[in-house]
């Protein structure tokens, strides 16, 4: 691991530096405060929340709200907790991310290295897909899912997210591959590699940064999606976001804030993990191509 010293373009004085750090600190606190509130209150008894200070640390740490949110809480009519819905989300997100990323990479490959008449038009139309509001596609999409016989299933949701994400993944890969030397593809053609072989032996191995960007983008978008989940799922295919909403809004009687907080954090954990694990590649990927080397 080469630990490059950080290069700064401008030499800053001590005072400026202090100001910069102060500003950064203020922003960090501002953004972390909600997480802090959720975190501390998810470990409190309900009575303590009601009686005490939202910002105070718990007097008595309890895991009960977490356990309840995970597998006991009433979601809709069943006291299943969020666990089965968490699984639903995983079953939806993983294939949707993998498929949309692969298809986006293939599209990018074709649009840059196997150009055909009208390819820019195709790309423009795909770009257009990025700007279509979710709400517009709801009804046509419902028709399509019904026609295909996968309405209300996890695979139906996978299809919806793949179709919706394709515009973005294609955009990412097309721009990345546009900077990929076409001579490499020509050399591979002369070497006798086929269309797909060139893709997975030459292009894909060099696509690490953009794959990371695409996966993070797709994962967070699909995981956090609520509208499609609420519109196209049944009880047995509802994703985490919809279940969380049901937990928070449909519970009768007292509002169990501690359970709600725990549930919300549970729902956010996967995206947090993805950012922590791959975040540094994310920034690197976004910068790739901007500067060579």
């Amino acid at each position, binding site marked *: 691991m080469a630990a490059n010293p950080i290069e700064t373009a401008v030499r800053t004085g001590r005072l400026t530096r202090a100001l910069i750090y102060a500003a950064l600190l203020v922003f960090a606190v501002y953004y972390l405060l909600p997480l802090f509130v959720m975190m501390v209150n998810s470990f409190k008894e309900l009575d303590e929340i009601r009686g005490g200070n939202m910002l105070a640390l718990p007097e008595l740490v309890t895991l009960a709200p977490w356990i309840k949110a995970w597998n006991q809480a009433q979601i809709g009519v069943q006291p299943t907790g969020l666990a089965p819905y968490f699984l639903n989300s995983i079953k939806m997100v993983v294939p949707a991310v993998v498929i949309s990323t692969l298809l986006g990479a293939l599209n990018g490959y074709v649009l840059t290295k196997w150009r055909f008449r009208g390819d820019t038009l195709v790309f423009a139309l795909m770009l257009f897909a990025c700007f279509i509001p979710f709400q517009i596609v709801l009804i046509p999409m419902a028709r399509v899912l019904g026609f295909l016989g996968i309405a209300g299933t996890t695979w139906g949701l996978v299809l919806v997210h793949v179709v919706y994400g394709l515009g973005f993944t294609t955009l990412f890969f097309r721009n990345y591959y546009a900077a990929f030397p076409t*001579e490499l593809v*020509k*050399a*591979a*053609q*002369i070497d*006798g590699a086929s269309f797909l072989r060139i893709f997975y*032996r030459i292009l894909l191995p060099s696509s690490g940064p953009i794959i990371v960007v695409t996966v993070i983008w797709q994962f967070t978008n699909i995981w956090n999606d609520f509208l499609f989940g609420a519109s196209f799922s049944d009880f047995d295919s509802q994703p985490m976001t919809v279940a969380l909403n049901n937990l928070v809004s449909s519970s009768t009687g007292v509002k169990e804030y501690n359970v709600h907080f725990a549930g919300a954090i549970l729902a956010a954990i996967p995206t947090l993990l993805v950012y922590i694990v791959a975040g540094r590649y994310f920034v690197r990927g976004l910068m790739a191509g901007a500067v060579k080397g």
Partner: protein
Amino acid sequence: MSFLVVNDLEKRFGAVEVLKGIDISVPRGGFLVLVGPSGCGKSTLLNTIAGLETVTAGEILIDGVRVNELHPSKRDIAMVFQSYALYPNMNVAKNMSFGMEMRGVPKAERQQVVARVAAMLQIEDLLHRKPSQLSGGQRQRVAMGRALVRDPKIFLFDEPLSNLDAKLRVEMRTEIQKLHQRLGTTVVYVTHDQIEAMTLATVIAVLKDGVLQQVGSPAEIYNTPANIFVADFMGSPSMNLVPARLDRANGALVVSLKRADGSTTMLPLHEPSAAAEAFIGREVILGLRPESIDDAPVADADGAQRHPLEAHVEVTQPTGADTLAMIRLGGREVVARLRAETGARAGERRRFMVDMSKAVLFDPETEERL
């Protein structure tokens, strides 16, 4: 018997005509160099031979077989790209063996061939490095190595040396020449460096705007350029082109140059072509290579073809091996290649000898050679 034949080839990108009726043939073992200014279609022509571009019209034959419809991998060619096009994710050995792997050559044999070629190019130490860990010259060698593992019918080179510094370029040029002599494989080589073209080629094809200007041996291209463009493009410094008049004097054809002081200088022509007769009394363009003008004392052997004239020296540029002098002739600045130890000084009037045996004449209107 021609080994590579390009027959009336045309290539169009949409409405843009990039190649316009190219006809070239190269014998087996020949070294064809395509030269021309940037954007004239050299790479496009090479790519059509490789099969990386389709042709709009015409045909390409390799070893007597029409290859228009053949996939690049089926044409039995190997190509070295200007950017080298080394696969960035593979090490040097993998880069060299990838093509063999695609063709289903067994692993043991692949390793053997890579080892042999690596030894030939002296890149054995680099086999496990990635392209990003190589210098420009090393990358160039690896790119050559990737072509050499194939033993193809034709090697195609697209400006393989243009990314190297001047010294390395000369070195690699010699190596390519040696390789060609050793392997005897037919080569098509693109460059816009006319020194590379002159030194490497057995056949030179000069292109301009997609039109073939001339095909011939380096000597033919240099001594009898088909038109003013070729005359000007090949040779460094390029051929002097001086407006003049063709006249008949004492029964022989002479070229009359108007001097600044109003007088004329007459230079007799040796072996004028039949076409020249038609231009008697008309304007022509006289083409003289810089080495045809010098200031050495008359040597007896070829004295008959050298003619004296006086001219004003404007500047001198010593290059080490010889000295270039800009002199005034026919209202133009003309370059003369003098001996390094010449006494010529800027500003003086000096006596020069003009060797007319290699002079050429051009029609000022069509710019074709007479």
